[in-house]
């Protein structure tokens, strides 16, 4: 393992663990951006530049901002602070730890460590565009339809229906 991978993995795991563990929801999202940026850096390290930059734009740029807006719009100043964790937190943690144990056991016993890193692939953005426009053009169109439907649906769901009646 290289030093760069260890540093990036520590940053990613620390950011995401802080995002799932801190009390203040806005702090959680700020820690989450660190975790997402760490994942993007790991993509860059794996020579997937386009996916890494997409990750930065979509997750760090859009999803985190959307989550911050949602947290600010649903913030209720209550005198009694509600507990951060649900009443089933012990069971949830045990299930998550068990899932990690099973996954780690499967990965370690799979013999994936014998796989050596192939030579660096030369992937240009032009190749990705060609693939999107030829081989993957149908999924691309369906994705455009899905994003349009999701955008319109999100606006309709989040709209305040009481204001129309007034």
């Amino acid at each position: 393992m290289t030093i760069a991978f260890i540093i990036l993995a520590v940053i990613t795991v620390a950011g995401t663990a802080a995002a799932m563990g801190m009390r203040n929801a806005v702090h959680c999202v700020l820690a989450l951006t660190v975790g997402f940026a760490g994942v993007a850096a790991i993509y860059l390290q794996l020579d997937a530049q386009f996916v890494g930059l997409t990750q930065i734009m979509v997750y760090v740029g859009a999803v985190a901002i959307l989550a911050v807006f949602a947290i600010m719009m649903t913030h209720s100043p209550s005198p009694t602070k509600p507990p951060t964790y649900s009443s089933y937190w012990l069971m949830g943690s045990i299930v998550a730890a068990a899932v990690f144990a099973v996954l780690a056991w499967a990965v370690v016993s799979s013999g994936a460590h014998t796989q050596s890193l192939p030579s660096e692939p030369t992937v240009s953005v032009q190749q990705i565009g060609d693939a999107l426009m030829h081989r993957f053009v149908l999924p691309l169109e369906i994705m455009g339809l899905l994003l349009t439907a999701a955008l319109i649906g999100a606006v309709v769901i989040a709209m305040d229906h009481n204001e129309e009646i007034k």
Partner: protein
Amino acid sequence: MNSLQSYLLLSSLLFSIGLAGALTRRNAILVLIGIELMLNAANLNFIAFWRFGPAPAALTGVMFAIFSISVAAAEAAVGLAIILAAYRHSKTTDLDQMNSLKG
């Protein structure tokens, strides 16, 4: 020398952190963020298998990751809109108090 194993272990750790968050947090927005983390772990697997796979020139893993990121973005937008609508209705995002489907 990085092996495929280290990336897979990192992604299973990310998945477990997201699962723990989704199962234990009370705030609905943070549960949604936990689900996003699990999707991110899956994307990391796609990219790692693409990079270590026999035919990286086919770009299949990259395409999978790009489409998965798009679906995750649509899911986040709709999920947050649903949380906003539920908050407007029940004045809380606390999942332990949201226990009624009937308005």
